[in-house]
């Protein structure tokens, strides 16, 4: 996808997808997330070495 960027983040303890989005400054209403290749709710827990993809789906225009 155009404009793709990759960032590595350290997660400590029980971190949820929603916490990661907050850290990235993204509103949950505007994104879809894939956790290890599967679309997942923001309440899912992220563990070390997990791959989280964030797709901007509410872009306006």
């Amino acid at each position, binding site marked *: 996808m155009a404009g793709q960027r990759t960032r590595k983040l350290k997660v400590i303890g029980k971190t949820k997808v929603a916490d990661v989005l907050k850290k990235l400054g993204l509103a949950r209403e505007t994104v879809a997330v894939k956790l290890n290749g*599967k679309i997942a709710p923001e309440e899912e827990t992220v563990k070390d070495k997990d791959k989280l993809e964030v797709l901007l789906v*509410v872009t306006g225009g």
Partner: protein
Amino acid sequence: MLRCSLCGRQAAYNRRYAGVLLCDRCLVKSVERKFRRSVAEHSLISPSEKIAVAVSGGKDSVSCMHMLADYCGKKNCELVAITVDEGVKGYRGESVRIARENTELLGVPHFVVSFKQAFGVTLDEMVRIAEKKKTGFGPCTYCGVMRRSLLNQAARELGAQKLATAHNLDDEVQTIMLNYIRADFSRLYRLGPAYPAREGFVPRIKPLREVPEKEMALYALLKKINVHLGVCPYAGGIHSEIRDFINRLEENHTNSKFMMLRMFDRMKPQLLGAVPEFDMKKCERCGEPTSSESCKACELLEGLGFAKSVDLKLIPPAHF
């Protein structure tokens, strides 16, 4: 792992406003059910009607066309797709290609009408001239007015009884708020799941009015529908501010979007008669329906130094 509240499979989405977790299958089914419920509750489509759907190539309109194709097949309705090419360099070309790809996949006749062909000027050119002439109108005004005009004309020329647009819950709530902010009572008053038939206008229907934008995106992703996710270079201004504000509100106060829609729908019948009915006239320049002497599209074009000259050339692709 979180599980679907309905079937126990792995959850894909937390529908916070309803307090349920949904798996991929249950989410897709639920979005399609919302579509069918809107169509049935508001009698948006009658059997054997010809329906035109506005398809930009984006997630909402392409998904809407997929749902309509399925529905129309079952109800013996005829479906045609209309794409408006506004002429936005680096943006619209790709979305028109994706719209075409989806119509071919579904076997839906597809008609592309362009600003350049109809008005002799692209949106990019309109924006440049407007800036030079200091007309005070932004890109979204030109785009919205001209696009609505072209869609109506194309749908009417194609003999469609309804024109379906893919406005979702977010679009509807944002428009309600925008009309409040602009104190535009007559536009606010007209909002709803369907616009009544008036001479010269093909009634517009919005079967996705109760589906949040995020669910539309997830639907397209889960159904693996090829959609355009590009950002319009003209996006911004008050529309974006309202969208960001409402999304922040929803994040902190779940169900705000639906509450705003429900409140508006409850208020609407109380407003009956508050706006005086007006007679439909024909625009003295182009003949399109209007409430005043000339239509908004002609007024805007005149301000840019162009005369409205519509040449739709609605020729279906060779294989239809």
